[in-house]
């Protein structure tokens, strides 16, 4: 790309905010009541995570892995790709993350939380992704029908995953966190270019996770 310095983020935005949020509205209508199932799975993570233990770690990894694979196919591949040709690459990234979570957490059982010293920041991030993040859209004036929920929408799923990884990933944190962090940056840039007032939510959540993780490692 010549004269790359003359390009701005808006040069890469292919759709309007109206089209983007309509995508969630139509998606939510199509998959209903999968949101209820996803919310129940999210609550299950919150229940299992603080107790630690092998099978609970495997269950949490299975829920997260399945969520990333679902979003790769149902959201990015089937919906987002209709308005953004780059979404096929994003879908591939989400599928890779889903498979990584299943491999590391479910098959190799390397995602066990320490039930005795739970990472409270990680747990708070998960709680925020499940309950707080979906409420932000309606609070800033978007329709309830366009709500983005954990397990079916990419942003709260990425944030919740980072929270879980703080609690349970151990040495595998950076391997498993790279793609969720990348998505938080991408979605932040997209929403910022669209002028969404909540554009910094996912990048800030990711930044908190990264800073906290580095701080904890010292």
């Amino acid at each position, binding site marked *: 790309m*010549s*004269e790359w310095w*003359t390009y701005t983020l*808006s*040069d890469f*935005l*292919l*759709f*309007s905010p*109206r*089209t983007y949020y*309509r*995508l969630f509205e*139509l998606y939510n209508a199509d998959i209903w009541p999968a949101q209820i199932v996803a919310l129940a799975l999210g609550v299950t993570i919150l229940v299992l995570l603080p107790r630690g233990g092998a099978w609970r770690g495997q269950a949490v990894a299975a829920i997260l892995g399945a969520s990333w694979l679902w979003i790769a196919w149902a959201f990015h591949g089937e*919906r987002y790709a*209709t*308005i*953004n*040709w780059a979404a096929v690459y994003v879908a591939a990234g989400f599928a890779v993350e889903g498979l990584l979570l299943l491999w590391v957490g479910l098959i190799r059982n390397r995602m066990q939380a320490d039930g005795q010293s739970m990472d409270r920041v990680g747990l708070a991030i998960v709680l925020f992704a499940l309950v707080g993040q979906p409420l932000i859209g309606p609070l800033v004036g978007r329709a309830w029908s366009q709500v983005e929920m954990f397990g079916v929408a990419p942003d709260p799923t990425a944030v919740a995953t980072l929270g879980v990884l703080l609690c349970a990933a151990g040495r595998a944190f950076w391997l498993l966190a790279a793609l969720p962090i990348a998505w938080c940056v991408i979605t932040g840039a997209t929403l910022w270019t669209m002028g969404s007032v909540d554009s910094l939510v996912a990048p800030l959540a990711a930044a908190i996770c990264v800073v906290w993780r580095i701080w904890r490692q010292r």
Partner: protein
Amino acid sequence: MSSPSRVDRRRLIRGLAAASAALTVRPSIGSAQRAPVVTRGVPSSGEALPVVGLGSWITFNVGNDRVARDSCAEVMGAFFDDGGRLIDSSPMYASSQEVIGYGLAKLGKPGGLFAADKVWISRGSRGRTQIEQSRQHWNIPRFDLVQVHNLLAWEDHLPMLFDMKAAGQLRYVGITTSEGRRHHEIEQIMRSQPLDFVQVTYNVLDREAEDRILPLARDRGIGVIINRPFREGALIRKVMRQPLPAWARDIDCANWAQFLLKFIVSHPAITCAIPATTSAAHVRENMGAAAGRLPDEAMRRRMIAHVEAL
């Protein structure tokens, strides 16, 4: 000073011209009294094109949203009703081509369509395949114009496009850029290749094309399509905060959109501008710029000064 007889003759000629032009207005519901559409000839063929076309960047990329697709079809319907012809798209614009195809099918394949699309792929060998995919999205027999989008792999694509033109698979060949990028390279291609069209950015505030591209286009007999006439809406949002100056009536402007578009299409080198919109009301406003009087050079300078001062 003109003699009374000369004035009368001039009035008569003007009246005859207006009446003649009015016969060329596309008949439509509610448009019986509409003014003639101002056209400009494609330099390489003389074919008359309305000076206002329709872009599809962002606005027509609505995916599979049926309600939004119907809304786009309504925009296209208003465009054709008001005498519009040229619709421009690109494979880069995601679902826009399919949405145009949907609209054309819903409108019963309007006969006046001038289909302008682009080839946008880095591998030259895939150019024909991409153009064929685009054609299928539009669901038309052939494109009128295919342009090399942002000069991507133009060395490979242009010979292929000239071959397709020679074979009757398209009618015109062009190149595009936007926001003033790569004008030096655009100039070199305009000098060395038998182009029919070049597409660049030009508006009352972004006038870099005036220096070399537009004069060169006139010299070389190349048609000019203007993208981003409203700076993707930012320009019109800026001027809308102020009232339209009273003197805009002297060039038959009823709103800011017409003011901004008439500035563009009054440049003698420009064939048409392609504003994009999601609103049928706005497309009607835009098409109003292709009617009535256009500004002369003195008025164009006044328009620039006025907008720059806002």
